[in-house]
Structure formats: structure tokens, C-alpha cells
């Protein structure tokens, strides 16, 4: 019994020390100055592709663009996507480009607070300085909205933000969007979009109890999305089995129409309506090529013959 007590108190001491260390643990890395000039058009395009507008605008409630999104109900609590307008108090009006870069690529706010992974920053980690400058330029054109988004409704223990440092250490995977040698340009472009900006894996890859993605099961689907939506498996074999082709998948990203003649509902309807329908046909086809793992449309045709 005494031994047991010693053990317990030992663990408690270690635990307290460990907790202190975690709380004091600085996360993220310094951002080099974003010196490049941003391009508003490119930035707006990237913002569409990345889902900024979809998530940070409450369309249901008729909210102003980027003034804060519809609540996201998760097992960890209810998250309210914040106001990203140029409002100095409730938006990003007072931010610097470097703070913006750190928020987007590293998931850390200007005051050093780590964000909840309901903001899919892990997918944006490979954005270049030029991407960031473009996005930043585009966000400067958003009219200010003088209203704060509601505060996240998260209960203990998930309201302890230091816990997010552990989460980051465990689940902040590199998005792996760099080009792969030997694959076609469009396939690589699709890879960049699918694994990066478009963050398909945020919904289509299952998550563990801690909300981390099960990377070994990438794109294997997730039946427990916030709000009761379900994301099907989208690995090449799953897509092929359900009659998806490069052509009809690219078309679905534009129109929401599936090979069976159905029309997307759930969160995927929003993804198309507020995101992928604004992409160029070439980018939608690139995403389809990567998802079906084909280098070219011709390669698909010859494979099926």
C-alpha cells in the first residue's frame, strides 16, 4: 500500500511539473517578414479554394461575408469561426502580415494562443510566402464588421488551451504537398490542392478520440462529422467502385451532381457552393486526377480500355 501511495504521489509530482512545462512550452516558430507584394485576385481565389469564406460566413443567418461562421458542433464543444473582416477590434484589422502568416500556417494567434484544430491550419502549413501575401492582400478588401463572433463553448478539459500544445505535437502532420517527381503537372497540382488548401482530409479522413486524423487511413471516410454529416471514403479504389471518373468527379466539384444522378447534400453541398465551383476547370480536373491517382485523362481512358 505504501508503495502504491509513493507511486501515486510520484506521478502527481511529475504530472504537475510536466503540466507546468507544457503550459510554459512555447509553440510555433518565428515568421520571417512577408516582404512580397500580394495579389488580391490570387488571394481571393486561394481563399475560395481553402474554404475561408465557406466556414467564416454564416450564410444561414444571412451574416456578412467573413464576419464569422455558423457554429460547428463537435464532441469537444461548439466552435464559432471568428470574424475575419478588417474590423480593428473584432476582426483582423490590427494584425500584421506576419501574424496572419503564423495564424494560417502554424495555427497560433497574435497573442500566442494555439488555435483549436477546428481551424484546419495543419493543411495550410505549406502555403508559400507569396500565398500568404496574396491572401493577406485579399482580406484587406473585406469591409469591416463591428461585431464579435460568439466565444467558443468548450467545456473542461478541452477549454484548457495548453492541451492543444500536446495535440499539435501528436497530430500536426506535414501536409506533404510538395511535387512528386515522375508524376504529371496536373496530378501534382491536384495533390497540392487536395492535401493543402482544399483540406479534403479534414472531413474524409477518420479522426481518433482526440480529434487527430488517422493518417494511416487517409481518405477512408468519416461517419461522424460535426452536425451529423457523413463523409464517404474517397481513396481511388472507393471512387472507382462508385463509378467516379476524372470527368464526372471534376463535374461534381463544379455542380454537386454525382454519377448516380444524385445531388450532394450535407457539408459537401457547401464545399461546392462556396468553394470548388469557383475554381478553374483545370484545377477541378487536377483534383480529380490526384484523387483517382491518374496522371492524365488519357491515362484513365487507356486504363479502362
Amino acid at each position, binding site marked *: 500500500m505504501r508503495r502504491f501511495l509513493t507511486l501515486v504521489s510520484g506521478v502527481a509530482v511529475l504530472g504537475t511539473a510536466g503540466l507546468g512545462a507544457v503550459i510554459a512550452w512555447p509553440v510555433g516558430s518565428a515568421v520571417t517578414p512577408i516582404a512580397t507584394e500580394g495579389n*488580391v*485576385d490570387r488571394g*481571393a*481565389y486561394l*481563399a*475560395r479554394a481553402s474554404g*475561408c*469564406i465557406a466556414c467564416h*460566413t454564416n*450564410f444561414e443567418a*444571412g451574416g*456578412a*461575408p*467573413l464576419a464569422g461562421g455558423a457554429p460547428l458542433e463537435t464532441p469537444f464543444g461548439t466552435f464559432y469561426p471568428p470574424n475575419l*473582416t478588417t474590423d480593428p477590434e473584432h476582426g483582423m484589422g490590427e494584425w500584421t502580415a506576419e501574424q496572419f502568416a503564423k495564424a494560417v500556417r502554424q495555427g497560433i494567434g497574435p497573442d500566442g494562443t494555439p488555435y483549436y484544430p477546428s481551424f484546419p491550419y495543419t493543411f495550410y502549413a505549406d502555403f508559400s510566402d507569396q500565398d500568404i501575401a496574396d491572401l493577406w492582400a*485579399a*482580406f484587406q*478588401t*473585406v*469591409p469591416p464588421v463591428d461585431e464579435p463572433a460568439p466565444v467558443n463553448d468548450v467545456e473542461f478539459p478541452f477549454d484548457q488551451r495548453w492541451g492543444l500544445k500536446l495535440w499539435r505535437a501528436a497530430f500536426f502532420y506535414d501536409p506533404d504537398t510538395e511535387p512528386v517527381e515522375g508524376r504529371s503537372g496536373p496530378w501534382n497540382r491536384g495533390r497540392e490542392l487536395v492535401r493543402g488548401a482544399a483540406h479534403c482530409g479534414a472531413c474524409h479522413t477518420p479522426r481518433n478520440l482526440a480529434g487527430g486524423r488517422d493518417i494511416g487511413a487517409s481518405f477512408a471516410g468519416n*461517419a461522424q462529422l460535426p452536425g*451529423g*454529416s*457523413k463523409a464517404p471514403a474517397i481513396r481511388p479504389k472507393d471512387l472507382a467502385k462508385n463509378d467516379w471518373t476524372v*470527368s*464526372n468527379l471534376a*463535374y461534381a466539384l*463544379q*455542380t*454537386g*451532381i454525382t*454519377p*448516380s*444522378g*444524385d*445531388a*450532394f*447534400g*450535407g*457539408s459537401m*453541398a*457547401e464545399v*461546392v*457552393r*462556396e468553394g470548388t*465551383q*469557383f475554381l478553374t*476547370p483545370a484545377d477541378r480536373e487536377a483534383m480529380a486526377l490526384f484523387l483517382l491517382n491518374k496522371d492524365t485523362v488519357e491515362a484513365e481512358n487507356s486504363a479502362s480500355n
Partner: protein
Amino acid sequence: MKKTTIAAAVLIAGTAVAAFAHSGATGIVKERMDAMAAMGKAVKTVAPMMRGETAYDAETVGDAARLFQQHAGESMTKLFPEGTGGMPSEAKDEVWTDWDRFAALASQLEEYSEGLERAADNGLGGMGGNTSTDGASMMGGGSMMGSDTTMMGGSAMMGRGGMMDAAAISEMPADAAFAMTTQVCSACHERFRAEED
């Protein structure tokens, strides 16, 4: 042992319920499922034409548009009387708690498919049905973020006051008109249909 029996009973009951969900619809629920399926079948026939995979046939597109009209508007809403939600229906409660919006989408489908019927003879636009805005207004101009119909500023389509009339749809290339019409399907499914397994 007892636990196993209970588990088995639950499993069997669960399977029965699941089977019922997919095949057990009767009466008005079956009627509306059949209507949806008929429209889906028409979409399945027409979509490959819009993608240029099968030969474009204006008559087939017109038939599809007439079929949508037949199942849209009040023809659709009358199949959703109160109290007909729940298993095996896929209709969410929001159909009845937000009836006005549901009815508005049903009537929008009617309006758009009238436009599509008239657009059938326009043929394909060669854009693969780029529906939302033209490239210039989507990608151009520094004022694009924040206004109602642009890139950063909400959807050009289904947003506030974004509804078009049949005459406007009828002037679009058929593929664009078709995509406009089927986006109404998606908008309605997004809000009012439960996700299937």
C-alpha cells in the same frame, strides 16, 4: 450468456430496422422517394451530355426539364404533409420547422426547370457549365471581396436576393442552365435531407 442473447436480439432488431429503412417506405413517403428517384434518373441521363461524354440531344434535355417541373413546386411540397418525417423518410425535421424556405426551394426548382426547358435548344456553351459568375467578375477587380455576388463575398447563386427567373435561365447555354437547376437540388438536400449511410 444472457448478455450475448440480448446483444444478439439487439443486433437482429437493428438489422431489421436498417433493412426497413431502405425498402420499407410506403404511402406518401414512398411516393416522394419515387419522385426524387425519377428526377435522379433524368439527371443521370443528361449529365454526361453536359460533360460532352454522350451526344447532346435537346429533346432529352427538354424531357428532363419537364419531368423536374412535374415534380417541383406544389407537386413536391404536397408530398411532405406534417407528421411524415422519421424513419424510413430521409426528410429532416427542418422541412417542417423551416417550411417557407423548403417551399421556396421547391418553387425555385419549378422556375429554373422552366428556364432549362427553353434553354435546351441553346446547346452547350463549351464552358462545362461554369455556373456562378463569369471569370472576369469572379477573378477581377479589387472590390470583389465583400460585396454580395463575388469571389470573397458570398455566393452569387443562392444568396440573398440571388434568385433568377425562368427568362434569364432560358438565355443561358443548356449546360449552365442545367447546372443552375441542379444546384437547387443540392441547396435543398444540404438543408433538408439527412445523410444516408
